[in-house]
């Protein structure tokens, strides 16, 4: 166990401080924050409930809309969504919507509120492949409508990247457990170590279930050709999963090199630092002006002491030594490290699931595949690749399944 890795980085609000933050909210008319949430959560409404000391009502507003509400409070890139439009920016800085949401969901957890209710059983049974946020949200939505739900998950534990991707100091296991337990309590049957395509085939699922939802995410890290046989190289998602699986207790290199400029690269680099690796260098293809990682993640990595170099492409690797070339000039850069981590994107592995995948998402719009009994959701569906989008896509796919199986739309 590595305490630093497991310790949550952000300090939570107390009742006094959350009231102060809620009081900063202007309680806007037609609030822009509420229009900016991909999962259509209504921040203006739950902040108002907090402002008027109705914490239970606030919890209802969040939870009824988002079965991953506690997780989103911790990992949502709010700077791109709700907080971006906040009117308070016109005065100083946006309301800390994620922080308030976290206070409310912690409150919900402490009181063990049971907000989501199982629907009257309708005799129909849905199979979901993948237990990431999309699969979990779809399960919650379907269970509330009375469907029975079985989730097939290839990994040992459910949660997808919530469990094996996002580092524990940003998203502790207890929160993931809590969210998943609630969905199990609603009646979800989660089968772990059950890869669809191996023991169970898609056609079997189609035979035994009324509909199948595929939410397998992009669960593999991309490899660059030149690193394929290098024994010191590991993909970022493999590395992060290894750390998380061992609660931070892994043998550490003296120095590490991370290649990539997105959030996953920042997570890998920051994790290395948190674990205690002396020298961590990140080399990004993008220049800072076009950086992909969120400002918060970039700042977090820098604050931990990660050296970040922008604008370079790897050109050659031999053992522990990687040579880079600058994208816009002739400069070269050589870095030697005990561990080389590639954070150059994730890819979908769905060969046995007969999906038309291009650029790591399906080629069609919406959720229903050409086989009317089979649906997709989450990262493999078209659109943004974040937890909150996975939640929204899970909800929408569940609604389409319900509509196909005879449920009323929008009820």
């Amino acid at each position: 166990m590595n305490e630093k890795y497991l310790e949550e980085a952000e300090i939570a609000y107390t009742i006094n401080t959350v009231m102060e933050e809620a009081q900063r909210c202007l309680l806007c008319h037609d609030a822009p924050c509420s229009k900016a949430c991909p999962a259509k959560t209504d921040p203006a409404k739950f902040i108002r409930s907090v402002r008027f000391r109705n914490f239970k009502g606030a919890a209802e507003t969040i939870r009824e809309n988002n079965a991953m509400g506690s997780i989103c409070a911790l990992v949502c890139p709010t700077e791109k969504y709700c907080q971006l439009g906040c009117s308070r920016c016109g005065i100083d800085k946006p309301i800390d919507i994620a922080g308030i949401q976290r206070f409310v969901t912690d409150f919900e957890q402490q009181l063990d509120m049971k907000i989501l209710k199982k629907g009257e059983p309708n005799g129909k049974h849905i199979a979901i492949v993948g237990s990431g946020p999309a699969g979990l949200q779809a399960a919650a939505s379907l269970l509330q409508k009375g469907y029975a739900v079985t989730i097939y998950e290839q990994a040992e534990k459910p949660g997808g990247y919530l469990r094996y991707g996002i580092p524990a100091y940003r998203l502790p296991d207890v929160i993931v457990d809590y969210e998943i337990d609630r969905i199990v309590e609603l009646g979800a049957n989660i089968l772990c170590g059950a890869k669809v395509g191996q023991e169970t085939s898609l056609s079997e699922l189609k035979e035994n279930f009324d509909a199948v939802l595929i939410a397998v995410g992009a669960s593999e890290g991309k490899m660059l050709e030149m690193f394929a046989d290098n024994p010191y190289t590991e993909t970022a998602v493999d590395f992060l999963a290894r750390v998380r699986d061992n609660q931070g207790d892994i043998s550490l290199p003296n120095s590490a090199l991370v290649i990539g400029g997105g959030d996953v690269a920042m997570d890998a680099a920051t994790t290395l630092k948190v674990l205690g690796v002396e020298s961590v260098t990140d080399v990004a293809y993008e220049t800072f002006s076009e950086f992909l990682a969120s400002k918060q993640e970039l700042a977090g990595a820098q604050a931990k002491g990660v050296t970040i170099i922008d604008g370079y492409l790897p050109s050659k690797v031999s053992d522990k030594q990687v040579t880079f070339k600058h994208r816009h000039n002739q400069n070269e850069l050589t870095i030697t490290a005990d561990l080389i981590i590639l954070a150059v994107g994730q890819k979908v592995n769905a060969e046995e699931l007969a999906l038309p995948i291009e650029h790591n998402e399906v080629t069609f719009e919406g959720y229903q595949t050409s086989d009317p009994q089979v649906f997709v959701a989450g990262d493999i569906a078209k659109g943004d690749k974040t937890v909150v989008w996975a939640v929204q896509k899970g909800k929408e796919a569940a609604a389409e399944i319900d509509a196909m199986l005879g449920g009323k739309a929008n009820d």
Partner: protein
Amino acid sequence: MINKDLSIDFLGVHFENPFCLSSSPVGNCYDMCKKAYDTGWGGVVFKTIGPEHFVVDEVSPRFDILDKESTPFVGFKNMEQIAEHTLEENLADLKRLKEDYPDKVLIASIMGTNEEDWVELARLVTEAGSDMIEMNLSCPQMTSHEMGSDVGTNAELCKKYCQAVKRGSDLPMMAKMTPNVTDMVPIAKACLEGGADGIATINTIKSVANLDLNRKIGLPVVNGKSAISGYSGKAVKPIALRFLQQLRSAEGLENLPISGIGGIETWEDAAEFILLGSSTLQVTTGVMQYGYRIVEDMKNGLMHYMEEQGVDHLEELVGLANPNIIPTENLDRDYKVYPEIDHEKCIGCGRCYISCYDGAHQAIIWDEKERKPYCDKDSCVGCHLCSLVCPVGAITKGEVVLKPGRTGNPADKII
């Protein structure tokens, strides 16, 4: 989302929930009341309607607010009188509201200058379809001394006008009290004798909220001058609650039907008014600041409170706290409670030390090096000022001890 029955019967009228707009600009016309009903308010007390011969002539500007630190609207001062619309317009609005919202409660607030006015207004608003009448005996800033709180502080006049209203209408009627009295009980009793069925309380408190320091004029400034006028909002809640308690603990008024008013903006405020004897609740300032939408959290929060309390009917909560507020001379003075300081939670600000030294009994010992407070039990009187100023809740109630020479078991004390 929780869903519980919030309905309650008050003076024989069924309210789908206890939340009403109090008579003021928030319920000034058909469109406003319609929006309020649509947002979920159970009832509306329409803006006070006066006799045709009384010409309302308002000042501009007419409001001011009291702030504290960064909190605006701690209290709200207004210089408004009664409805500016014509009698005819008001009656037409009442009629249309009742037609369009037959299940919502419509209460007409009226105010006359003499008996004939009161009889006539009562008759007119009854004809227009109101469910109930509220007599405004309490506006503190009328330009006529025959109206408002000048009437409401005179028990005899109150009784006479209540009788007049009862002559003009057989609708249930509440008399709305002014808090600008030392004792509300004689006034309330006079109104009941005159035929009032219940009491609405409180109207606004006479006030001067702020001055313009350079010009040396009260705010708001009306052509170089200002005037004493009514204060409302959160700051008046404690005063309103005190009047509720005094009424309900007076002999003969133990079951007095009350519509509670004064500084309500959260479900917790609402629950307090109910526990001290209100069956229905009225709100103005909260709505002026935040809009009709505040009723959503008041209703939802009250439902959760009922659920926690295991209560299915709101009326079961009415007046439950009245027996627990007793005359000061009857309180148990045999013991004191020492503060307990949690040094883990303490952030070392020293506020308890300052307040105890300068405002209490010099009983907090300050460890300068560690920046930690300790309680000196010999000096401590157990006033708990320290726990009230602590910004992190690190000071709670600790050991209970009997004062010298007193008997009893400290463990039995409900602290």
